[in-house]
């Protein structure tokens, strides 16, 4: 049987480097300043919300963005599903409607990296 062994940590610097890595997988358990909420009612799922959520998760990982992705039930605007709300640094959330997998990279790029709200996709603010 192969015994899995962890590599030796040879200095305090190495310990700190390891910690930086380890923190990433713990972030889900701490509140971050960015919260992305995806509508996951039956309406949302039917409109592709799960695929959208996966696309968001991939994009966050690719771009190394620190954010919590949360799923919520139907908020009553089924016609606009999939709905994605982004809240940053305690600011009121911006809700985007009819987000599909193709729109996700642009959404992350504009809103989370450049800080620009994509007005034509917004259906609600605050």
């Amino acid at each position: 049987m192969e015994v899995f062994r962890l590599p030796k940590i040879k200095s305090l610097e190495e310990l700190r480097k390891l910690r930086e890595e380890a923190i990433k997988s713990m972030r889900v358990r701490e509140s971050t300043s960015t919260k992305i909420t995806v509508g996951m009612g039956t309406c949302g799922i039917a409109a592709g919300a799960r695929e959208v959520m996966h696309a968001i998760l991939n994009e966050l990982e690719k771009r190394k963005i620190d954010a919590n992705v949360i799923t919520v039930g139907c908020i009553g605007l089924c016609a606009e599903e999939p709905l994605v709300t982004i809240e940053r640094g305690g600011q009121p959330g911006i809700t985007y409607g009819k987000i599909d997998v193709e729109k996700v990279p642009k959404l992350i790029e504009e809103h989370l990296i450049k800080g620009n709200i994509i007005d034509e996709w917004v259906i609600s603010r605050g």
Partner: protein
Amino acid sequence: MHRIYRSHILICRSSGCPGSPMIIEALKEELIKRKLENEVRIVQIGCPGFCSRGPLMIIYPEGILYCEVSPDDVAEIVEETIIKGRTVERLLYEDPIAAQLVTHYSEIPFYKKQKRVILKNCGLIDPENIDEYIAEGGYEALGKALFEMSPENVIEEIKKSGLRGRGGAGFPTGLKWEFTKNARGEKKYIICNADEGDPGAFMDRSILEADPHSVIEGMLIAGYTIGVNEGFIYCRAEYALAIRRLKIAISQAMDYGLIGENILGSDFSFRITIKEGAGAFVCGEETALMASIEGRRGEPRTRPPYPAVKGLWGMPTNINNVKTYANVPRIILNGWEWFSSIGTETSKGTMVFALTGQINNIGLIEVPMGITLGEIIFDIGGGIPKGKKFKAVQTGGPLGGCLSTESLNTPIDYESLKETGAVMGSGGMIVVDEDTCMVEFAKYFLKFSTDESCGKCVPCRVGGKKMYEILNNITEGKGKLEDLDEIENLAKFMEQASLCALGQLTPGPVISTLKLFRDEYVAHIVDKRCPAGQCIPLITFYIDEEKCKGCGLCLKNCPVNAISGEKKKPHKIDIELCTKCGTCRDVCKFDAVYTK
């Protein structure tokens, strides 16, 4: 590279929640069935403390808390919460006072008055994954001590912090370390006393199960400071999960080189051995504990010489409790000023209590020193079940003492507890309600301590037995008023003449209940009456004619046919036939059976 999951489901997996492995299994299956296994991670955690509502499940990033989860709930949780983002209301905690559902873990009233310092990681990290401990700042204090502080600096820091031994006696930790450091010996040892044996106590077990690395890190810092390279953890074999997690923690720390030669590239080397005890209560006494590690019979010896001078195999040895070591990394990282800002004048920091007995929120709590007993019982503990009145709380286990309603405003610290006749002890807190007979209560603890007497010295071996006989007579209605003086004499004798703390403190529960509830003792002796209605030889069972609905349940269940009565009419107990087994009281749905 650590995989990032969008959601973590934390499930308490400690000895207190035996059902949780089935939940974990069911959850694994459900996640695979739903193809969510790469999206959602299951994390087993140690005890988050809210044991009365366990097994608990905490779902992140939302922080939703589900109580009393069973494997049957798993499919619904995955469907509703994980996939659709809705909460399953029936599993939420309902605040009994505000009568509203509480969704988030952090908002449960149970946690509001707590200050979690050494329990910080308990219920947050996976104790079997060293990376999670490191992510939360683990082993950073060790690094700080090794590279930024001299051993003298560390001793100074611990001394200034005001940390006192959490095993019960409250000896200043910094001073103890200094004694061992300055003692002469060709080899020195460090021991962690994890031989927690008090009935109703589970503080040390929970910490070892939930955050074993914090204890290991504390021992490593002590080793560096005192100049020792060998440590032992003495833990009772009954603590199987604690020992398993300690072994995993030690092996992971060894892989990383955090235990072993030249730790983190420094000159400091240290190794840790786990010694499993066979469960004798007296082995929690330090000299008996050391004898047991040496392979001898677990019997105490006289002190001095103290272990700091002559300990394990005759060498200077530093012994601290689990919680004392767990405090050390926090003090090193946050500084003595921070630590000494918590607590009272003479007792700094926090204290961990295992809250149990007749109290609503049974669980593991950590509170700042100086909090009042009332705040613990009513605000954190949620009061007494079934609307009964609070009567007393036993602190310090079978060797402690009890506190009554008069002490509800007493601040909890080493000195003020001593003044009231109770002791801080290691953190056991057993609460009893108005229906408890205090003579019987004292007798229970006395029985425990006399059974656990090692028999080496006469005062403990014979004195305890003698005292038990007297108490037994009192509960059987054969007591005399002179017995109370005899108890006090015996107690004085045992306190002064016993070899170790076990014998010296055995009379504790008897003396403190005698002080606070003397009238109950007198009622047993003079009136031949048990005011709480518990001592069988002293009570008679009656049926309340007003309350009895004549359902016939007691009649059917009475093993000696002592109950008679027609259907739908009040029943009666024949006192001559009644064997006082209490079955009728247990089965009655209308609370109609009472004792006098």
